[in-house]
């Protein structure tokens, strides 16, 4: 946990307004953090990407108790792969398991495939929004921004995987668009530890360029306080 990031205020423009804050849980899918999913089938360990499950479960409980807007995202493509760009397809094949390819283990990152589902521990509940996205940024080619605007959301609590990919892209674009973002430090992780640690250091640059970084207990405390 970087001390510089800890000192960056969040929220920065006034007290926490739960009606204008969303909890965004990114891509906690079997493909990234479950047995038999894409990462597992690539021969990489899901040990890191499973670490945030506990803190995210606690965040979800706090957000549900407070009646907050909760949004879950899933990275994946239409079954006909019409939204899979050729570069992404080529690289995924070079990496070992092509996105959308028919394999005995299923079709990686493809909507409707079991691996695309959110893991059982963190399943969305009725009334919670699920955004399916074909890219890394939750804002790319989705309704995400329209959903936030329709709900009057101004601040984002961001957790999920992976910190170096979809989580970081979403925090960066969110900050550019004027959302007050806090990244939950123990609510995110990456397959490669060096990337995760490097990403946290980057986000802390110049006092927190894109927002704050906080442990889950700190964010949960703020939610509980604001809910009273």
């Amino acid at each position, binding site marked *: 946990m970087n001390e510089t990031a800890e000192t960056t205020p969040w929220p*920065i423009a006034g007290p926490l307004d739960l009606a204008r804050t969303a909890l965004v849980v990114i891509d906690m899918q079997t493909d990234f953090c479950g047995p038999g999913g894409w990462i597992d089938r690539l021969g990489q360990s899901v040990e890191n990407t499973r670490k945030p499950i506990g803190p995210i479960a606690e965040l979800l409980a706090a957000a549900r108790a407070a009646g907050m807007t909760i949004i879950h995202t899933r990275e994946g493509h239409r079954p006909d792969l019409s939204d899979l760009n050729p*570069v992404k397809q080529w690289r995924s094949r070079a990496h070992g398991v092509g996105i959308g390819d028919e394999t005995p283990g299923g079709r990686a990152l493809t909507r409707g495939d079991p691996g695309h589902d959110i893991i059982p521990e963190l399943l969305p509940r009725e009334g919670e929004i699920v955004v399916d996205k074909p890219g890394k*940024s939750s804002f790319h080619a989705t309704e995400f921004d329209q959903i936030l605007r329709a709900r009057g959301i101004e601040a984002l609590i961001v957790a999920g995987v992976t910190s170096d990919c979809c989580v970081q892209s979403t925090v960066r674009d969110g900050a*550019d*668009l004027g959302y007050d973002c806090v990244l939950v430090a123990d609510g995110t992780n990456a397959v490669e530890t060096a990337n995760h640690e490097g990403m946290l*250091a980057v986000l802390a*640059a*110049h006092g927190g360029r894109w927002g704050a970084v906080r442990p889950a207990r700190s964010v949960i405390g703020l939610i509980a306080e604001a809910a009273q």
Partner: protein
Amino acid sequence: MSRFNPVASRPYAWPYTGGWSMEDSALFLIDFQNEAVAETGADPVVSALVPLLDRWRAAGGFVLHGRRGFDPLVGLPRVTAIRNAARPLDRILARGSDGWEIVAPLAPHPGEPVIDHAGDNAFIGTDLGFLVEQRGIANLVVAGLRTEGAVHATMRAANDLGLECLLLEDGTATDLAGGHETIMNITRFGSGLFGTTAPIAAVEAALAGAG
């Protein structure tokens, strides 16, 4: 137009299609503005890019320039403005203010689009995506400041759009310790999840037909 051989880049030879030309490729110089160049000590980077820029122009290639800043009539989003005002370095400047201009050696030529963007991701709130689409650009060679800032944010967005990006390792700089290495690693991991990286000389070699 000439078709060039792939560039000797990591983790694979760029572009993945096996060749490129000035019709399907663009050189994007991001935010080489006076204050950012001074804060990051990027004068050597600027000097190193000039011969490539000359060669790219001589070949009739498409050059794009990023220029970060906010319209003083508009300002920044409220939260962004508060965070921007709180930091001593890497500030988003008002358009037209001291330090905002692109440095002279890399100044845009007439006809080269300048993308004025208020945040890091140069695709947000600009016509960059539209310009690239209209020109039929598939491949981007990227240089700029800061490595972990506008350069990486813009490459991430380009990647989501399906553009094949090459980041010039010695064509980008930052004052954040460790930032350069982190971004190079995140760009290349996962068989090039966000693209490839190469030194400027590797692109020059491909342009010279020696690639």
